[in-house]
């Protein structure tokens, strides 16, 4: 136990005495979350929209006016048929189409309810969400303004649809994604680099020719990063919650437990990399290309998995962050419990066991 504590103390010394490590550990997560957060929640301006007005009456004109005069939207095209709908979205300029149902004003008067459908191009999920939210907001304003003048409240029912990416319904997509990415970066890259550094400076040689066994060495290496990664995860969640209003609907302890599972997975992956990497540079390279890029590109963090070619979908199934992101979204946004994410949890657990077993097997007790 004393050996273990001494080893961990030493690791903490390494971490806190190296500015670069500190920046990667604490600076980058902070910067990433804030950066992504602000880039994504940027104000909307001059979003090009199209209107398909099947009714073409006074009310629909008024609503259209309200929307276009808000400053957020410019009316680019008026369309008349279903084929046009597909065409404008394919062309890519138009981000939203507003469809008024037939006899809109009449229905509103007689039945007190009329329908508007909003269709947004959700290949950029976050802005699509914002566009829809803004439009519905304007329509809602309009409804309340006309309701003030009459006794019986009228309802305009807004029907939203995301095109291309119907699953993505949250602006908060990026927090789980960033969390997966940063935990991967900190845990896997930093541990692999720190083991590789000992190989490079020759201290590993001395450690090997000592009574420390591989498990002690690896546990000693990993423990500080468990602590630091966990701190990181908490920071990210707190930033998401307090700065960007990201909700946490589900159980916080479950969230933390799942996070811990992912951290351990990433650390075992880092150790596995370090068994293969002779130098810090190689460790860095492997972590970058084998972990970071797939995390960003294939985990569904930025590009929706459903839209990928089949082969990439299969590859993405091998990416641990994919499951972690699903778990996070479920707990944070939907508030679901373990019952709904046991499958993903099981997959992550299994992967962790495989990585640990592989590292233990590959760790050389000699040079």
């Amino acid at each position: 136990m004393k050996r273990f504590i001494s080893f961990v103390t030493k690791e903490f010394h390494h971490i806190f005495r190296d500015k670069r490590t500190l920046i990667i550990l604490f600076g980058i997560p902070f910067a990433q979350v804030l950066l992504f957060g602000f880039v994504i929640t940027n104000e909307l301006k001059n979003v090009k929209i199209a209107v398909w007005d099947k009714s073409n009456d006074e009310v629909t004109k008024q609503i259209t006016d309200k929307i276009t005069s808000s400053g957020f939207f410019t009316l680019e095209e008026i369309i008349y048929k279903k084929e046009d709908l597909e065409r404008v979205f394919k062309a890519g300029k138009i981000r939203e189409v507003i469809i008024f149902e037939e006899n809109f004003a009449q229905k509103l008067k007689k039945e007190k309810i009329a329908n508007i459908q909003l269709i947004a191009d959700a290949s950029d999920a976050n802005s699509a969400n914002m566009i829809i939210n803004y439009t519905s907001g304007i329509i809602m304003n309009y409804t309340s303004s006309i309701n003030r003048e009459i006794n019986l409240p009228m309802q305009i029912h807004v029907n939203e649809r995301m095109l291309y990416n119907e699953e993505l319904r949250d602006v908060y997509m990026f927090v789980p994604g960033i969390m997966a990415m940063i935990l991967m970066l900190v845990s896997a890259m930093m541990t692999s680099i720190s083991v590789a550094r000992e190989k490079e400076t020759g201290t590993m040689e001395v450690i090997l020719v000592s009574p420390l066994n591989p498990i002690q060495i690896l546990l000693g290496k990993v423990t500080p990063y468990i602590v630091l990664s966990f701190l990181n995860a908490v920071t990210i969640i707190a930033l998401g919650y307090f700065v960007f209003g990201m909700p946490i609907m589900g159980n916080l302890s479950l969230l933390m437990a799942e996070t811990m599972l992912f951290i351990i997975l990433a650390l075992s992956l880092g150790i596995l990399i370090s068994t293969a990497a002779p130098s810090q540079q190689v460790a860095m390279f492997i972590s970058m290309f084998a972990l970071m890029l797939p995390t960003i590109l294939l985990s569904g963090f930025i590009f929706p998995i459903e839209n990928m070619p089949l082969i990439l979908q299969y590859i993405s199934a091998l990416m641990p962050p994919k499951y972690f992101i699903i778990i996070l979204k479920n707990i944070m946004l939907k508030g679901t419990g373990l019952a709904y994410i046991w499958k993903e949890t099981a997959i992550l657990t299994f992967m962790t066991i495989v990585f640990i077993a592989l590292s233990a097997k590959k760790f050389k007790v000699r040079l």
Partner: protein
Amino acid sequence: MSNSIEISSLTKVYDNTKALNDINLHIKKNELFGLIGPDGAGKTTLIRIIATLLLPDSGTITVENLDVVKDYKSLRKIYGYMPGRFSLYQDLTVIENLNFFATVFGTTVDENYDLIKDIYSQIEPFKNRRAGQLSGGMKQKLALSCALIHKPKVLLLDEPTTGVDAVSRKEFWEMLKNLQKNDITIFVSTPYMDEASLCDRIALIQKGKILSVETPENITKQFGKQLLQINSDNKYKVLKDLRNYEFTNSVNSFGQFLHYTDKRSVPEVQSIKNYLNEKGNSNINIKEIMPNIEDCFMDLMIEDKN
């Protein structure tokens, strides 16, 4: 006295070349044993195999009756090891390094302070300095202290004096001599031939082969020829002239002198002098001397080639 390290017919192959070729060595308990040879001779490979860091391709090594392949775990408890490069944590302070290695070996600095006292006391004034900021000589003392902190039975030192200035080197060897009083077998490698005379016994190694294993005195006694020391006003000219002399067997620079051996069984000093005078050299002094380790090493190198 029994043997501490037994190496028999050890061979190690890298990429089809024999890094170590049929090595046989028997190192006694409590001996200060020197492995002497240039870079690339196989010194590091041999030490790493003894240190259980590499596996031999054939042959066996036992250390304190433990096999380096099978019993590596037990051996790692009794070894003190200093690799060729400075291998301490540069970002830890002197005392942090020492404490770390003490706990790794399940001991404390206080417990074995006696053993390292002489060495450590020289760097103790800097104990809160980061190891990376120490001078070469001090780093080496710290590394040695760390390797000794658990009172090892066998101390393996791979080129501890490389790149260290002549004075620090001398101090280091004095420390090793002192350590012998503590029942430690010391196996040390070095490329500096002049350090050989400080060892109890030495092995000369070149291209993976042991050329000779002896006490330093015996190695120089085995030098088969009369060795002449020559100096003059222009050493470099004499060197060039002697290279063209018909009776020259070998001629090498040694500091301000030349060391010369003759093809004849008994060299004729006067005829050599005459030859050099004819060539226009002046102030020629020739006298017979005892060979040193470097003479022997070069002689054995050439012999080995033929």
